[in-house]
């Protein structure tokens, strides 16, 4: 699987898009989606919520397990992807595109976000 070069990645397997007007899009990586199996339920943070880098802000439930969704950065949620709430399988079928999870206005970010190449090495290890 290939991790898009233009994104940045967290150790919790979220991806973060480039920031436009201070807002970035967040999703989980294909690696994480494959590990979860078929996602059947997504509880996303709500618009207006403040999320904190490294802390749980939702849940992704798959056939076999439930996983916390972590925020890769700190900030205010400005959008949640209703398409994923309605059809959680988008997380599996298009993790880097239609399966995005939420958009956040960044107020702080950790210094350990990885480049695509670093994340590829991280998941290979």
């Amino acid at each position, binding site marked *: 699987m290939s991790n898009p070069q233009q994104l940045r990645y967290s150790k919790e397997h979220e991806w973060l898009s480039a920031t436009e007007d201070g807002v970035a899009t967040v999703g989980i990586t294909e690696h994480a989606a*494959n590990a979860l*199996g*078929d996602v*059947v*339920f997504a*509880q996303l943070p709500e618009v207006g919520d403040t999320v904190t880098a490294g802390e749980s802000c939702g849940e992704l*439930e798959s*056939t*076999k*397990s*439930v996983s916390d969704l972590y925020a890769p950065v700190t900030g205010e949620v400005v959008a949640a992807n209703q398409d994923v709430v309605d059809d959680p*399988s988008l997380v*599996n079928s298009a993790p880097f595109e239609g399966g995005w999870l939420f958009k956040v206005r960044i107020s702080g970010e950790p210094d350990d976000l990885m480049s695509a190449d670093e994340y590829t090495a991280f998941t290979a290890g």
Partner: protein
Amino acid sequence: MSTAPRLTALDAVHRSLGATMTDFAGWDMPLRYASERDEHNAVRTKAGLFDLSHMGEITVTGPAAADFLNFALVGNIGSIGVGRARYTMIVAEDGGILDDLIVYRLGAAEAPEYMVVANASNAQVVLDALTARADTFDVEVRDDRDAYALLAVQGPESPGILKSLTDADLDGLKYYAGLPGTVAGVSALIARTGYTGEDGFELFVSPGDAEKLWGALMEAGTPVGMVPAGLSCRDTLRLEAGMPLYGHELTAELTPFDAGLGRVVKFEKTSQSETFVGRAALTAAAERAETAPPRKLVGLIAEGRRVPRAGFSVVADGKVIGEVTSGAPSPTLGKPIAMAYVDAEHAAPGTEGVGVDIRGTHEPYEVVALPFYKRQK
């Protein structure tokens, strides 16, 4: 002893198919090949091909084989006809379930032979118990775990797929039966004892023949929609079919009566002696079940979308009234489902006010009779 997981004879096949593998009872097994939901639906509507080589086969032969199994197991093994199979259990002296088993009677009276199939996680326990219990009987208990690979074809298309590969009389093979035959040129014990709620067949073959048979089955099955299917969909299939799984619905802490499966215990047997291991404890358990009904195994269907998991509490009026033993999103129902043991007064289908505590939130659930899914015949 090595702790490396054991590989089945089909390991190279699974890897070439890109399977996600998982450790299961010390075996490296395919969890899923692509989407477990697609595999599940294929088994319900067409067919799925499973590698079940981790199951534990134990062969029992000798003049006293039937009497021995009547003593060692809770069922009436002596009454199984040649070519038939029976679901039964092995319990400890205290009546606790050591494993649930399928016993196939292979040999006729002049050469008694039975094959006992144990769950992978319990195969050694069952083998040890049978070996110990065989002391005073004229029988041989043989560990045949390495002698067999086990492939299963499950789903409505499975009779057609298999018929194209064998001359064996499949129409004459009833549910819970097994007969020797040849499939795709490979010697096999062909059984019809599925665990998915669908019609289907299990093929016990020599490990050396497993790849050849897998290839022939895929060639015959692919045109009608058969796909390789992993353990993940096997679990959702059996859950929809309401079938108990050792370690979940069945444990050493429960007797067959506590598990609602007292019917598998036969106090009257076709042996001169009606003694069997666990008899005294099970007699007491049967009486207890009469006077003080134990928790009942029920089905729960979610009204919402959060999935109950094994170990979650079942609640009513803020009190814990039971425990989930298995839970998963049901591909067929499109909702989360669970099996759970609940107090008898909350066990009736339709009981109001029952919920599951899902990480602190009491999610509403409907109590239903098992199974969730029954195939149309």
